[in-house]
């Protein structure tokens, strides 16, 4: 695959197999020989049926799944760094500065209010506390989280509101690489449209986005390229 000069993410020969020791060491090959590139300012969508390994690819790029083979190059501080081989502290640094991740599940922190969580995400090196609070308020407003809920810990609000707080948290941090794992799942039309807008804004700012979207209409609106993960099925895998 051609390397684009403005590439932000590049996977080369990436493979992942789970070994389930509690099931007698059963090997569960997920993907093999994954190759693709995501350029700055574009959105690449991972396609294919569920269970094909799309989330696993995102998790390997974020570093919470380990990679068994290949390289996962991410442009960090102007240089390619290989997440698959990076020591933990480098992965953490890359997450603080370069790689953002929004999943459909919120891991709540006891007792911390929604606005404080989103503000903390927006508040990094170049953003003051006051600016961060402004970014957080704007995102929560756009995602239709009622202001009376902002001081409450997300665990105490409804699932739909939790999800929108989670999305606000993910978009609050300004990272040049953004991984989106089904952020629009179970959102209503109005909020889905807000997420589509947020993605378009990030693309205009040059953010490289790699996402999984179950919703065909959303996929249509945000994707510059679709990478079908079915092509990375390991030969030994059982086809469903």
């Amino acid at each position: 695959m051609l390397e684009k000069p403005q590439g932000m993410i590049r996977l080369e020969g990436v493979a992942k197999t789970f070994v389930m020791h509690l099931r007698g060491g059963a090997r569960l090959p997920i993907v093999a020989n994954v190759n693709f590139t995501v350029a700055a300012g574009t959105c690449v969508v991972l396609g294919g049926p569920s269970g094909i390994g799309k989330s696993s690819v995102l998790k390997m790029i974020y570093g919470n799944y380990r990679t068994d083979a290949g390289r996962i190059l991410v442009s960090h501080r102007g240089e390619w760094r290989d997440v698959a081989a990076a020591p933990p502290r480098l992965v953490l640094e890359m997450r603080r500065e370069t790689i953002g991740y929004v999943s459909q599940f919120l891991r709540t922190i006891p007792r911390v209010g929604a606005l404080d969580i989103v503000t903390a995400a927006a508040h990094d090196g170049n953003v003051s506390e006051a600016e961060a609070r402004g970014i957080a308020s704007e995102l929560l407003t756009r995602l239709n989280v009622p202001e009376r809920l902002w001081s409450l810990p997300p665990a105490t609000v409804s699932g739909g509101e939790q999800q929108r707080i989670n999305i606000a948290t993910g978009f609050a941090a300004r990272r040049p690489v953004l991984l989106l794992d089904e952020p629009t799942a179970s959102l209503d039309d109005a909020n889905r449209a807000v997420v589509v807008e947020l993605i378009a804004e990030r693309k205009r700012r040059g953010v490289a986005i790699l996402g999984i979207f179950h919703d065909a209409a959303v996929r249509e609106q945000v994707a510059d390229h679709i990478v079908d993960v079915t092509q990375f099925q390991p030969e030994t895998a059982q086809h469903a």
Partner: protein
Amino acid sequence: MNGTGSIDERPLLVAESVSKYYGARVGCRDVSLDIHEGEVVAVVGESGSGKSTLLSVLSTQLPPTAGCVTYRMRDGVARDLFTLGEAERRFLLRTDWGFVHQDARLGLRMGVSAGGNVGERLMAVGWRNYAAIRSEAEQWLGRVEIDNDRIDDKPTAFSGGMRQRLQIAKNMVTRPRLVFMDEPTGGLDVSVQARLLDLIRSFVSTYGLAAIIVTHDLAVARLLSHRTIVMRHGSVIETGLTDQVLDDPREPYTQLLVSSILQG
């Protein structure tokens, strides 16, 4: 959790091939690890895995049978912990380090008031002005959410959660760079645990503390730590980013531990 500073900076504490035997019995075996400023490392495993022995060696409470532990002092010089002079060791124990024990009676003087427990640590580093000591103690009690009208009460009159918060205030008053925690939430009710965990989490990020937290509770590791070390039978069997170890455990024993978590 904001985490650590530049990844190039030298570690605060380095353990190299540390082993501790009790006669023929293994406490911990050939453990190497490092911890940087602002970094929280969880050591997880079941009872008897060696995690508490490791904590005792790293904090100089037990000499290792083999291996070496160095610590970067405030002057920037890394020193072998087991060749320190008594004055330097006292400085670490009383000032630059903190300890939060599961059993508050090990970390507090139960017959001394809450304010006295906090003030004592200040007096040990040379504070003499009573009003200043009392006011500093009040501030720290406030930060750990202990009402000021409890300052003259003894810890014996406190609940389990309050005792743990008092231990934290007592440690924090000298602004330590490294805190050792041994099952800090063990034996507390779930709601009390959540409050304590939140307090620890906010102190770690506000004050840039490094911490080594020994826990059998993977949820505590998940919430507080950047990296996790899994121990079994005295040895380290798996290490990595906390979410990596918990989301993609590689070793059979780690997979068993992770699969045993109750989903909340």
